[in-house]
């Protein structure tokens, strides 16, 4: 990069150049290659604005085989949609042959199928049209892990809900109605949060801002919670558990809640780190509690 303009000399050809002492061992050099030098740079950063002198030293990290977030989401969400329907329609080899292609006599089973399917269709549409992802990709092995989780639990839940010997909720219509209201309320809430988060970010950008309540009442929960999308998600699954009165659904809700709490705490911590003026009243996922 010679010429009239003052340029930077970058040592970036086929090799990576690193500053080492003469008495460094090969092992130490290898570990420097893998060492995290603090936070990664962003794709959008401009060389001129980085805190370097006339010589810049870049550390590279091999992330391993990657797959796009969109691909993973579409795959992991399509599975439960299809699998549940297979159990709902009592496809052969699941239940005893005399039940093949029959339908349940309980109307709550039909309702549950509609809710479950609606939930995953919503997620697929959000993946395609709503979410703005910070990272383009994730490690390839995640798709196997995630699909096993979603698909496995979907099959387990669907097996019992659509079983010929399914027992409807004890408190009957009252219980189902309450559960449905909770479920729908939280679906709308979750969607509202996703829209609000999307609107924080101009198209194609990866900026991060503090989310605030908007005119939509479903977003007023931002006053008390950092990650209300997870709060609403928990509520949806509690509703579905109540609606179906099915223990595997309860297990799925608990496991999901644990995972979302871990994510919410992490997100909350990074909000606090990044923004000095972050509202102190907020909890990660459950108002005042967690």
């Amino acid at each position, binding site marked *: 990069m010679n010429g009239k303009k003052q340029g930077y000399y970058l040592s970036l050809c086929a090799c990576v150049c690193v500053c080492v002492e003469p008495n460094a061992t090969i092992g130490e050099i290898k570990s420097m290659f*893998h060492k995290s030098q603090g936070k990664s740079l962003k794709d959008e950063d401009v060389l001129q604005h980085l805190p370097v002198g006339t010589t810049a030293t870049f550390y590279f990290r091999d992330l391993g085989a990657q797959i796009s*977030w969109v691909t993973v989401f579409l795959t992991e969400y399509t599975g439960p949609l299809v699998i549940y329907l297979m159990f709902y329609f009592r496809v052969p080899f699941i239940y005893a042959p005399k039940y093949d292609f029959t339908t349940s006599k309980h109307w709550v089973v039909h309702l549950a199928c509609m809710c479950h399917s609606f939930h995953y269709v919503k997620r697929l549409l959000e993946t395609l049209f709503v979410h703005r992802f910070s990272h383009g990709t994730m490690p390839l092995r995640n798709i196997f892990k*995630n699909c096993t989780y979603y698909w496995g639990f979907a099959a387990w839940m669907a097996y019992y809900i659509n079983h010929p*010997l399914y*027992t409807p909720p004890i408190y009957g219509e009252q219980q189902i109605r309450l559960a449905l209201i909770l479920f729908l309320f939280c679906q709308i809430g979750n969607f509202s949060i996703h829209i609000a988060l999307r609107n924080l970010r101009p198209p194609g950008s990866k900026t991060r801002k503090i989310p605030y309540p908007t005119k939509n009442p479903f977003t007023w929960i931002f006053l008390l919670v950092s990650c209300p*999308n997870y709060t609403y998600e928990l509520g949806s699954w509690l509703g579905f558990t109540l609606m179906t009165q*099915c223990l595997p659904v309860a297990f799925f809700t608990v496991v999901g809640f644990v995972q979302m709490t871990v994510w919410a705490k992490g997100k909350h911590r990074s909000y606090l780190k990044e923004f000095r003026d972050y509202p102190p009243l907020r909890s990660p996922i459950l108002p005042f509690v967690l």
Partner: protein
Amino acid sequence: MSAAAPGTSKTGHSDVVQKKKKGPGALATAYLVIYNVVMTAGWLVIAVGLVRAYLARGSYHGLYYSIEKPLKFFQTGALLEILHCAVGIVPSSVVLTGFQVMSRVFLTWAVTHSVREVQSEDSVLLFVTAWTVTEIIRYSFYTFSLLNHLPYLIKWARYTFFFALYPMGVTGELLTIYAALPFVQKTGLYSITLPNKYNFSFDYYTFLILTMISYIPLPPEKRTNALWKEQRKACRHSEYPSQR
């Protein structure tokens, strides 16, 4: 779930430049020494019990009954080891330790204790003997390590006997589970059937078969890998070998 965790992967952390691990404090060390001594003694009691019962009866048959109580007590006591890892006074993985201890406790209570008919099987003696020898060596290994005075004989015994004791134990365990199957199926032990108000079912018979299958690919990797890792660590940090 609506959103997932950050997408960057973790690179495998290099073993080359590693901070020296701090050992447990003095109080924790004292507690661990006592724990390991007690466990060594306990399994010695079981060993002696087996020998005496054999000499008294003159046959291998039904020796389980003579050591049933100490076996249950000391094997169940090993659950504390999970706590040791969780609290951090022992630098082993909680998950790995949990897996190993739970599989032992499962066999002791959910199979041998629960299905009376298998208690007189010879396969029970097979795994009890394997466990007894393994544990005596293992707990004395830890005791001596904690006191920084590990006789080479014990270290050698630990890594050598494993190759005989592990297959012996696995065989005994698998045969015992296999022997329990018909009784579990007949009585519906620990099983829940539909219909019920929780819309849940569990077939213990199928669960036992799956357990038997899980012995095949998983445990050898975990066990041999764990021991080889410990061996490498023991060579590099000879003043503080890996603990349980």
